[in-house]
C-alpha cells in the first residue's frame, strides 16, 4: 500500500517529457524451443501516447506486451518502464510493477466465480485499498464503462463486449499510468469493437499511455494513431498516425496475394 503511493510520487519527480513510458533497447526474445519471437526491437513510447502494435499472428505483438509487464524476460537487450529498467525489478516487486500497468486481454481473463463488481474490486483489494474506497470506486468505474446495471452478474452471463468492458474497468480502476491491451477486440464484432476502442481512447485522453496490439485493420486505419508494425519479430515500420498497412493499390494487393499463396508467376515457394 505504501509503495502504491510512493511509486507515482517517484515518477512525478522525473522530468516529464524526456523519460519514455515504455522503452525497448535492442530487445530480442528467443523462446525455449529456439523460435525467435522478437528480434532487435527498439522503440520509445512517450507519456500519453496511443500506440498500435500491428502485424500478422505470430509476429511478436503479444510477446512485446508480455515483455512490458515482465511476464517474460528478454533474451537480450533492455526494457525500461517509466525510466526504470525491468531487469532491476526483483521478482518480489513484480506485483507492484503490475499494479501500475493495466492489462486487457483478448480472452478477458475475468475470474469466473466472481461477480462483475467483485472482479473489479479484486484489483483494488490486491493493493490494500480500504473497503470504503472500493465501495466508492468500483461503481464509478463500472458506470464509466457502461455496466452499472450488471454489477452482480457473473462473467458468463455477459456478452463478449460486456466482458471486455469489465476487463477494462478492472485494468483502469486504480488509474495506472500505462494501459496495455492485447487484441482487445479480437473476439468481438466490428460494432462492439468500436465501443471498446472508444472506451480505450477515452482512457487515453485522461493522460494514460495506451499500447494496443491488434490486427484489426479497420480500427487502425480509422483511428490514425501511431502505428508500430512488426514482422517476424522485427519492427519494420513506426509512423505517427499511420495505417494498418501503407497504402496499397488493388493491383499491388493482387500481386501480394498471389505471391503469398505461391501461385503467381514470381511466387516464392514458402
Amino acid at each position, binding site marked *: 500500500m505504501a509503495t502504491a503511493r510512493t511509486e507515482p510520487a517517484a515518477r512525478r519527480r522525473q522530468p516529464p517529457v524526456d523519460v519514455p513510458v515504455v522503452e525497448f533497447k535492442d530487445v530480442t526474445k528467443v523462446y525455449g524451443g529456439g523460435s525467435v519471437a522478437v528480434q532487435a526491437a527498439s522503440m520509445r513510447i512517450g507519456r500519453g501516447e496511443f500506440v498500435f502494435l500491428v502485424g500478422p499472428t505470430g509476429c511478436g505483438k503479444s510477446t512485446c506486451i508480455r515483455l512490458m509487464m515482465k511476464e517474460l524476460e528478454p533474451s537480450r537487450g533492455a526494457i525500461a518502464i517509466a525510466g526504470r529498467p525491468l531487469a532491476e525489478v526483483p521478482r518480489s516487486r513484480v*506485483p*507492484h510493477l*503490475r*499494479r501500475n500497468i493495466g492489462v486487457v486481454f483478448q480472452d478477458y481473463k475475468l*475470474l469466473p466465480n466472481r461477480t462483475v463488481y467483485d472482479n473489479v474490486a479484486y484489483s483494488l*483489494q*490486491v493493493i490494500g485499498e480500504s*473497503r470504503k474506497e472500493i465501495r466508492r470506486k468500483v461503481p464509478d468505474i463500472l458506470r464509466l464503462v457502461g455496466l452499472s446495471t450488471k454489477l452482480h452478474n457473473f462473467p458468463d452471463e455477459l456478452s463478449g463486449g460486456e466482458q471486455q468492458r469489465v476487463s477494462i474497468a*478492472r485494468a483502469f480502476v486504480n488509474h495506472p499510468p500505462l494501459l496495455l491491451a492485447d487484441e482487445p477486440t479480437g473476439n468481438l464484432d466490428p460494432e462492439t469493437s468500436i465501443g471498446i476502442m472508444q472506451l480505450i481512447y477515452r482512457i487515453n485522453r485522461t493522460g494514460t499511455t495506451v499500447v494496443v496490439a491488434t490486427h484489426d485493420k479497420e480500427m487502425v486505419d480509422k483511428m490514425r494513431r501511431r502505428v508500430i508494425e512488426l514482422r517476424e519479430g522485427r519492427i519494420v515500420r513506426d509512423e505517427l498516425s499511420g495505417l494498418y498497412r501503407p497504402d496499397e493499390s488493388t493491383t499491388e494487393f493482387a500481386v501480394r496475394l498471389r505471391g503469398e499463396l505461391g501461385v503467381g508467376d514470381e511466387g516464392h515457394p514458402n
Partner: protein
Amino acid sequence: MRWSFFLKEALRGLRRSSAPALAALLTILLTAVVLGVFIPIVQATTGTANEVRSRVVVDVYVKDSATQLEQAELRKAIEETGNVKSVEFISKGEALARAQEKNPKAFEAGAELLGSNPLPASFRVHPEDPDRLDEIVSRLNADGEPQLAAIDEVRDREEDTDKILSATGLVKALTAGLAVLLVLASIALIANTIRLSIFARRREVEVMKLVGATNWFIRWPFVIEGMIVGFLGGLLAVLLLAIVKTTFVDPLSDRFALLAAPDTIDFPLLVVLLMFACIAVSALGSGITLRRFLRV
C-alpha cells in the same frame, strides 16, 4: 480488513469448488483414521519389545574374599562405566534366597546341608542400550581377564541376550518401516488430492498475478482453505476413532494385554496430535502446491 478478506476468500473458494475440497477432506479423514489406529499399535509393539529388552543384564560376581572397600570400589567402577543405567547389589544371602525361591525342591532339605552359602554376591547391571552390552563387558572383563581385584567373573548370558536382541530388533525395525511407509503414503495421497483441487483453479491464480497480487496475497486464502479442510477431516477422523475406541477397544482391553499396554499414547494426546497433523499437512500442502502456479 486483510484477514477477514482472506477468510471470506477461503470460504468462497470452498463453496465454489466443493467437490475437490470434499475429496481432499475424505483423503485426510481416511489417512487420519489409519494413522490413529496405527500409532497405538506401533507403540504397543515397540513398548512390548522394549520391555523384553530391559531384561538384558550383565552379572558381575564378586569374590568372597573381597573386602568392603574393594566392593565399594567395584560398584563405583561399574557405575562410572558408560552405558550403565542402574546397578543392583545382590548379597550372598539374597542370592541364596532367590535361588531357593526359584527352585524350592533343591533346597527341600534345607540350606544347612550345604554347610556354608556357596553363592557369591553379585552386581546386576542394567544397560542403557542393550545393543551395546559389549561395552560394559569388555570394560570390566577385557580379554577374559577381570579388571578389578574384587571381580570373580563377568557374565552376560550371551545366548539369551542375543536371541532377545535379534527378535525384538526385527519387530522394532518392521514397525518403524511400516510407520514410515504409511506416513509417506498419506502425505503423497493428500498432496495429490490438494494438487488436483488447486490445478482446477490455476487460471484464477494466473489472473490474480496479472492484476498485481503478491504471492502471499494469493496464497493465504488457499492456506486458510487447507486449514479448514484439514480441521474438518481431522475432526471427523477423531470422532470416528473415539466411537471405535469406546465401543470396541475399551471392552476388549481386559482380555488382550497388548490393547492395555501402558506405554501407548493417551487418547487426548493422540487427538491433539492428529488434529495438528491434519491441519498442518493440509495447509502446507495447499501453500506448497500453489508455488508452481505462482511462477507467472
